[in-house]
């Protein structure tokens, strides 16, 4: 990625999401929370899930992190609303697989596709995957 490409990416995609993140606030009444921490860089978020009748009704998040992790979690939170836990596991699985593998199926959501295109962003893939991995680990291990 050239410097110009990096600037375009941030200007058009990352910074707008970073500056106006979706549901970026603490939620005291959440059904359950998931912690997304990267001890190497200090990024630390809490994800707040509200659930009803077998579906996730809303997802909020709050914390500190880089523009990439914040934008990625913002997009993730929006994409997970109204899904079942099983569908969330599948979605996060697909996303992480897409970030790790050369060839993968793209997810229909345009913003998630944008994130997936950054799989070759050296040194920053962990930032993009941070929230998704935390959610995947939670739902895989949760007693649903």
């Amino acid at each position, binding site marked *: 990625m050239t410097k110009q490409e990096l600037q375009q990416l941030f200007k058009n995609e990352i910074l707008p999401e970073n500056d106006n993140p979706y549901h970026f606030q603490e939620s005291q009444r959440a059904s359950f929370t998931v912690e997304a921490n990267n001890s190497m860089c*200090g990024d630390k978020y809490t994800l707040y899930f509200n659930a009803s009748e077998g579906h996730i009704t809303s997802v909020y998040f709050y914390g500190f992190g880089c523009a990439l992790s914040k934008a990625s979690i913002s997009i993730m939170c929006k994409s997970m609303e109204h899904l079942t836990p099983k569908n969330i596991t599948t979605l996060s699985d697909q996303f992480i697989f897409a970030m790790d593998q050369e060839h993968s199926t793209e997810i229909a959501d345009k913003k998630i596709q944008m994130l997936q295109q950054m799989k070759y962003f050296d040194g*920053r893939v962990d930032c993009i995957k941070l929230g998704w991995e935390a959610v995947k680990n939670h739902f895989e291990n949760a007693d649903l």
Partner: protein
Amino acid sequence: MYLDNAATTQRAQSVVSAQSHFDMYENANIHRGIYDLSNQATQKFENARTEIARFLGSGNANTVAFTQGTTASINIVAQSFLAPRLQAGDNIVTTIMEHHANFIPWQMLAQQYQVELRMVPIDKNGDLDLVQLSKSLDKKTKLLAISHISNTLGTIHPLDEIIELAKRKSIPVLVDAAQSACHFEIGVDPLNCDFLTFSGHKMFGPFGIGILQVSENYLADMMPYNYGGGIIKDVKVEKTNFRNFPHNLDAGTPNVSGVIGLAAALKFISGIGKSDMHSHLNKLTLYALDQLPQIPGIKIIGNPKRRIGIISFNLKNIHPHDIASFLNKDGIALRAGMHCTQPLLNAMGLQATARISFSIYNNKEEINKLVVSLNELMRFWS
């Protein structure tokens, strides 16, 4: 433009040559063969120990053990020296400013042996609170473990004063010299400490090699921690008798070419001269501290009385990882994150910082270029 020297320095050509010459023409296992190649390798290995002891101001090569690096050395002191002498009610003293390598081994011991771990705090400038340090040391203190220079703030700790406080109470002192070995006169004798450690790769040498120097007072207290061949005097089914320090730590085949490379690195440093290196780093540090505040929204982390070579900073509204990604596109390598000092950052109310760190090959023009890039980034972000 490489500004991440606190993480690792670039390798000196003489180090690469010394290692590759050994690997190509002189490679043999040491202390075991009775043929020329092995004898010569053994001779080189032990000569390196002597040269390293001399670098540390000591005429006694047997005070120097080779390890994998600073982290390994500190863990050896924890397990080999300190653990056997801990009793309930004892305490270990370290500081909030330490690298995790000089914190977690003591935290683990404290939990395992139910002794107190006392953390010396810092003031708002990033200097150690020496009053608290003095109060923390008492007759139950079994070790004071402290770095020479903070790897995050660049603070130079007043070791003379600190070690004197510990010595008055007969408390052994470990010094983590990972960030100071290049440009300070160090060693257990010059510093009057008891354990001293550094890593080769932070001083132009190879990865995976470092030293642990132990004062003569405690040589007999260093027990083997890793068992196998090479460390024994005599092995019977009933009992094994071990060699003395440093040879009781060398179970298995050591990193011989790493040791050869480390000796070459110390020769490289001596060739430049530690005082010249110190002076160069000092000038760069002062110049950077003068230039960086021109950048709008920058916050230099800490303002210690004495600092050298390392400066942490943050830019308003820009995460250090984003700073590092954008500067990378300008060909500038700097570090972003917690720098393995999470307790320090927590104490300062910080989640992460960007960090620049200098070495002998950096210059003022590079600092000018850094300032231009950071200014451009601030304009872009706003």
